[in-house]
């Protein structure tokens, strides 16, 4: 295993020398997700906890009128997104933002598109309480689930305590933490360092990603995100101020999290509000240097990509698609 990893690092080093920006590809690759998924001290990952969390995640009893569950807006078949611009919550109410995908959140430092939640276990309170999403709140969620003896039994097995806010938040957190995408063609390349896994267009797309396209300036590392927040000039004036809602700092106006590009070909529509429907349109936005906004990131500038180059970039982005969830496979 060590030799394999050492070999991998050497390949990455060579790769970095070849393309000037490639050093931004991190060497933090969990080959064995079970061994490498980080988990807090009070929520070590176990099979019983994942099972319980998965059940709660899919339970519509967690919404006020029992019409939606977490899974209603995070469908496994499309990388835990929902294919609509803005999701619909209870009573047909529109939410506020596009549903983000849930892959590889175990490696993310904070949560929501504005970073307002500091742990996976805490972020569940966001949709659970929001009157435009599930509208229930943790107090009522506990009251509902504690009436179900099978939940009580699962809680005792998983956490040695009755079902309560701790068990609900921890088990859902445990389940989400194990949603790992690491079997894309891109991963084969990262692990082997062998670019022959790519066809010509994919290979050229990677070069553009690292070079002329400048994508790697923000979409770096194994999960193709620097976990930062950027204003990409989507609007001249943002209705949703994004990160500034959290920091109350105008310098963060219109900034949203740089999303992971894992499975990006399956997570349309794009942007924080789902306002761009296709990957082609996303690339067009960046190719013209975005729109005008006083706070636009200086990383966004006219790229001058040809139509053919944009197609090659998309060919590379499609190599980021994984087909299975490694973390809870078999559970």
């Amino acid at each position, binding site marked *: 295993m060590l030799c394999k990893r050492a070999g991998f690092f050497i390949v990455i080093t060579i790769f970095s020398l070849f393309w000037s920006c490639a050093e931004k590809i991190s060497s933090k690759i969990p080959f064995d997700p079970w061994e490498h998924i980080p988990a807090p001290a009070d929520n070590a990952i176990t099979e019983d906890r994942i099972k319980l969390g998965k059940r709660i995640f899919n339970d519509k009893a967690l919404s006020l009128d029992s019409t939606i569950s977490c899974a209603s807006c995070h469908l496994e078949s499309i990388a835990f997104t929902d294919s609509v611009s803005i999701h619909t919550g209870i009573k047909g109410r529109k939410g506020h933002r596009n549903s983000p995908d849930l892959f590889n959140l175990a490696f993310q430092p904070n949560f929501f598109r504005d970073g307002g*939640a500091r742990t996976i276990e805490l972020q569940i309170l966001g949709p659970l309480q929001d009157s435009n999403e599930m509208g229930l709140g943790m107090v009522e969620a506990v009251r509902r689930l504690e009436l179900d003896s099978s939940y009580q039994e699962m809680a005792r097995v998983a956490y040695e305590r009755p079902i309560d806010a701790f068990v609900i938040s921890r088990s859902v957190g445990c389940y989400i933490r194990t949603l790992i995408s690491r079997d894309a063609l891109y991963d084969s390349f990262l692990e082997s360092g062998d670019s022959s896994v790519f066809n010509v267009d994919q290979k050229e797309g990677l070069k553009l990603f690292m070079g002329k396209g400048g994508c790697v300036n923000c979409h770096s590392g194994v999960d193709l995100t620097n976990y930062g927040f950027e204003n990409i000039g989507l609007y001249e004036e943002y209705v949703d101020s994004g990160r500034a809602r959290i920091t109350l700092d105008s310098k963060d106006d219109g900034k949203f999290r740089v999303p992971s590009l894992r499975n990006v070909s399956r997570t349309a529509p794009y942007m924080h509000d789902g306002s761009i429907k296709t990957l082609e349109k996303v690339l067009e936005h960046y190719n013209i240097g975005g729109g005008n906004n006083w706070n636009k990131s200086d990383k966004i500038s006219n790229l001058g990509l040809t139509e053919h180059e944009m197609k090659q970039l998309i060919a590379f982005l499609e190599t980021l698609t994984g087909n299975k969830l490694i973390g809870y496979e078999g559970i």
Partner: protein
Amino acid sequence: MNSVFFKLVGAITISVLLIFGCKPDEEPKCKRSNVYLNFKYKFGDSDFALETPYTNSQGESIMFTRSDVYFSNFKAQDKNGGGIETAKIYHLMLPGQTRYSMGAIATNYVDHCMFGIGIDSVTNKTVDPNTYPLDHPLGNKSPNMYWGWNQGYIFAALDGYIDTAGNGNHDFKFTYHIGLNELYRLSKSFKVAKIADASSNIDINITLDYAKIVDGVHMQTEPSTHSFSDFELAKKLADNLSGAFTVE
């Protein structure tokens, strides 16, 4: 030899106790007392209750339907201005409850006291309400006292309605939710000069005047803040709230 030694030690011990031991009221540090804050809720000169109309300083008829206010970090001082060690206790103040225990202190006299209104920044940004039972002040509440989006406690939630037409119908909603570390406030340092009673209790009587909380707020044109959305209004309300407490 042993007998003489033990007698000597015993005599010294008794002497030390006689010289340095407790004297009633003169060495209060030897006594343990339980401190209670007793709140009286007022709106100006009237007793305050939810679902009851009052007239604010703008001449508007208003009615509160919710008042949940966190207070914490009770501090006490002795007559020399020295701090008295107190437990770190959090309470959610509800108009239906008037007496709150602040824990035991190692004295029978409190000269000054103060407390925080809200949740201090350390607790606010490190605590996960899911780790507390629902009946703990810091646990999840219904209605919520913890924001799901910009995570942290709501220090004070004051909701109600305004009678905008002056026809007796309170149908215009106001929602004042104060939170964020920047809006944590300390009360004044109150002179209380309280000695423990025969049951070793020190009861400190405090009045919270809701009229002062909304004083200077034009509630019809400033009907809502969630702190992030209208920070200046939230700041005004947080300042008003911290000045709305008085001690009898």
